[in-house]
């Protein structure tokens, strides 16, 4: 499974606070992108302007859905991290850097990473982020499903993203083993986990 690469350090006392501040979020993402080369043999870079714009669009989503935290905290974080993934992908905040010396780690299957470096890097980062946040804020351990290693799911993800950027929220749910709302993934009121 490709999710066992840890780049968000355990000593960060409040990961959610770090994720909701541009300066600290950028630091975490930079560190993660740097680790992609050694872990998967791909290089990705951050477009800081696109990252800033996407982040502040997402900040409005956080403010608009604050009430949901009291109702279903784990799904609140799941939904918001998925929304952040959607905004960053939509803004092309991370992109692949072609390198001549790209070499995969011998022990690791990196076919998905090579096929879609930016999407793979961002999705992996968000999975780690939501795991840490839900662990810290809700005391619950969550992890990705087997679909994360299925390249056909990734192909479908990338194809559908072109037409509907918010579909990233549904794929992110799917990767985390949550029943996605494929029709209106950005609508909190229609989430399948609201009553859970």
């Amino acid at each position, binding site marked *: 499974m490709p999710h066992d690469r840890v780049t968000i350090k355990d000593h960060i006392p409040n990961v959610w606070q770090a994720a909701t*501040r*541009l*300066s600290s979020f950028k630091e975490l993402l930079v560190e993660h992108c740097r680790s992609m080369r050694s872990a998967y043999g791909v290089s990705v870079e951050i477009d800081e*302007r696109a990252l800033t*714009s996407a*982040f*502040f*669009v997402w900040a409005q989503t956080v403010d608009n859905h604050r009430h949901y935290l009291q109702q279903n905290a784990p799904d609140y974080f799941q939904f918001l991290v998925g929304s952040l993934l959607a905004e960053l992908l939509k803004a092309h905040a991370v992109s692949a850097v072609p390198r001549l010396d790209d070499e995969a780690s011998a022990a690791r299957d990196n076919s998905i990473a090579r096929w879609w470096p930016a999407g793979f890097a961002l999705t992996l980062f968000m999975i780690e982020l939501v795991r840490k946040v839900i662990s810290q804020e809700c005391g619950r351990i969550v992890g990705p499903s087997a679909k994360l290693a299925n390249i056909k799911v990734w192909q479908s993800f990338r194809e559908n993203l072109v037409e509907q950027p918010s579909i990233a929220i549904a794929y992110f749910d799917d990767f985390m083993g949550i029943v996605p709302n494929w029709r209106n993934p950005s609508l909190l009121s229609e989430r399948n986990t609201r009553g859970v």
Partner: protein
Amino acid sequence: MEAKSLIPRHIAPDLNQVRIALVDCARQLRYTARNVPGTESATTRTSSSQASFARPPLPQFLGSVGHLADSLLETAETYAGHAIPPLQDHWKLPVTVGVDVECLVHCAQDTKLVRGYSAIYYAAAKRFVLRAGAKDVLIFEHRINDALMAFCESHPLRSTSEDKAHTFVGNTLEEASAIFARLTLSLIDRHPIRSARFDELPDVLAPWWLVAEPNAYVFLLLGLVGCARSVRPDSLPADPDETLGLAADIVGSRESKLRAALRAAKPAEVLQQEFAAIVKYV
């Protein structure tokens, strides 16, 4: 009969303010001389086909006007003596928009301090507009000074008792966002940016909003930077130009909400909320 002078009527016989007014007069003269149609600087970007046509004769007096403006600027600086540092080139270096809000709230009588902040805002605004792709810009520093003075004189915390005034520190998000929202509206209201000349199409180098409404765009951006710097200075980039760039990207992503705040029935309240909503995520 109303005076035709560019010097505002209410300006006190104060050396600093006279100097600002003189410098602004000279800036306007120089800007006009640089941007008269047909002059070398104004036709630099004409196409080669246009250039093949005979140019109209250059007005002979324009060069003299430019020299006069420079002389005026020099005279104003000299006249002010050593009390005031020369400021006209401050924008050529990165400008840190750092405002001590507690001082600002209580400094209406300290014209030198207010003028220092005017100079910072003038330099930051000019540097930002030029780096955003403008070919030239005319900003009236005395209007920035007026806005700051008006803000200081009208700030509600000034009317509180001495004890209460001393407890005010202006470093909580709510306080700082309220202060910078009011200061920003005061600046926008006075339209210090009189003209900004962009030769490129908007959105190529600069966003439409900056080209169409430079006062709103620039002073919202500077207000946001001032607010963030007073509350969370460590979260901003060390390079002042990077900070302005970051703020421009934020303003771009929140444009609709910021525009709505300016149009609101109570703009100070709505803008305070928007500034606070942004800065907590910086």
